[in-house]
């Protein structure tokens, strides 16, 4: 027992143990300093920018902790130049083995540099729409509007089309409006413009647009485009159709559904049509349009 004790004391007081302790202390100090410096930098330079704060925090932490770790390794007697050389060879090996991760890391750096979106923006990638929670080393994290967590690899972000829905302060809403062939198109335009004018969320300028889209199968089609503040996009998108329908009803403007006319041709006799409640004299009237 006595021997064990002296052996332990010998080990603990040996220069190697002291330098190991010093190295450990250096790493701990490095981590703490890195965190402190990151927080300080974030507070100084990125008070209201969540993304820049995140980058500053990470950069400071990794940089300072890395330096302290290198110093700790030197304390332990490692020769860093040898270590770096070994790391070079190792990097090639690891690079081949972890191509995906490496490409994600590089893509992440490009994403941070290009800044197509920031934390808090709403983006659409490959059909997924959500709010950006964070831009990390390997992936971008999104929260979709049905509250799901989506992780998109940075490589995918770089390769595919990304739409930022919150970049610009105003947005346009395009509505397809079809009216019956019998309607007066000038009146339709006036009614649509009045609807836009009455809705306070609909911007007066840029002025609403009505674009003729074509003579459809059963209706004359127009595109009605109104502008809204990005925050009010959904409100206006939901309120404008209700108001258009009300205004059309008020002015007796018909929004037709697809019509199909049954025609038996001039060679044949017309369809006999009988109205309910009538028993005799089936009048050979024109066939009624029938919804399909």
């Amino acid at each position, binding site marked *: 027992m006595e021997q064990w004790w002296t052996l332990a004391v010998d080990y603990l007081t040996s220069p190697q143990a002291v330098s190991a302790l010093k190295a450990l202390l250096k790493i701990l100090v490095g981590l703490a300093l890195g965190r402190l410096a990151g927080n300080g930098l974030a507070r100084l330079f990125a008070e209201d920018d969540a993304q820049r704060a995140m980058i500053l925090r990470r950069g400071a932490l990794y940089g300072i902790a890395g330096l302290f770790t290198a110093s700790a390794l030197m304390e332990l007697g490692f020769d860093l130049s040898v270590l770096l050389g070994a790391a070079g060879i190792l990097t090639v090996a690891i690079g081949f083995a972890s191509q995906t991760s490496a490409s994600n890391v590089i893509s992440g750096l490009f994403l941070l540099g290009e800044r197509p979106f920031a934390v808090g923006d709403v983006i659409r990638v490959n059909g997924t729409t959500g709010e950006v929670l964070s831009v990390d080393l390997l992936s971008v994290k999104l929260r979709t509007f049905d509250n799901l967590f989506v992780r998109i690899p940075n490589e995918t972000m770089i390769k595919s089309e990304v739409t930022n829905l919150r970049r610009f*302060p*105003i947005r346009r809403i395009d509505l397809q409006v079809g009216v019956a062939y019998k309607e007066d198109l000038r009146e339709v335009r006036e009614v649509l413009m009045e609807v836009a004018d009455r809705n306070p969320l609909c911007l007066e*300028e*840029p002025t609403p*647009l009505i674009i003729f889209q074509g003579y459809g199968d059963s209706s004359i089609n127009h595109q009605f*485009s109104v502008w*809204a503040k990005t925050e009010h996009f959904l409100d206006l998108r939901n309120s404008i159709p209700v108001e258009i329908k009300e205004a059309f009803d008020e002015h007796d403007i018909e929004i037709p559904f697809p019509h199909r006319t049954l025609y038996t041709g001039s060679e044949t006799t017309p369809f006999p049509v009988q109205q309910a409640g009538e028993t005799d004299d089936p009048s050979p009237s024109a066939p009624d349009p029938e919804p399909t």
Partner: protein
Amino acid sequence: MEPSTPNGDPTPWWGTVSLDVRTGGRWAVGPSTLWLYRTDREWRIVHRPSPDAGAADPLSNRSDVTMPLSEADMAPVLDTDDPAVHTSRYSFGDTEPRIALRPALADRPVVSRPEHPLYVPPEESVTLYLSTALWIQITLPDSERKLQEVPSFRMSDTWFGPSTVDGELCYATRTAGRLRLDALPRRDHRAVTPLRIRNTAADPLALERVQLPTQHLALYTASGGRLWTQAVTMTHSADREGADVQVRSGPPADAKAAERLQEPRETTKKSLFTSTFSAVSTLFAP
């Protein structure tokens, strides 16, 4: 509330009133109607933006106060489930009897468009009288607590700026562009801004729209109860696009004796802004 002024002007709707417990009052200001009702534990604010079910008419000119209203008179308003009516309740341990209604200018700039384009020839200056809708601030004067703010008329939003990417959200209003003060009808829910436009450039200046920095303007009340803002001068010079906008300090020259009623919403050290007159919509292709 003060009694009607002798020369037949309508009673101003703003001021401080005292209401007993379980009584209320009704304020008709422009197109909107406001009810305030007091119980021992709460103040209830009921606001209806338009007098009837349809859209509000910006030119409707109402300014009347009915108070006190008993609980029975208020019952149809308090129990309403009309979606056009907005009710808010403010609860207190013990309500104060005094409540104040104060007019305030819009919280964003107002873009005014003349009904017909107005041209200012070179080396000429004109004064236009523009009116903008007011907000109604409801405060408890004894404890200086602000309860709510409602617009007397909700102006439409509009975008003012060189492009859809860069610009500012404003309120839109149309103006007849009156050049004479006596031609301007009196509307108690709107404040008048005398806008002087000077054209020092060599070309005539087409006024298609004017952006008034209402959030930087103070509100004044003249003897007849008419509401004024500080005067604004816009100078268009040859060497630059747009105009320099300067807010004049003190009451406007048309109402020198007017008293200051409300401070500007946003105070700024600079009294100079820049603005544009020309159409931005030409930039927007479909």
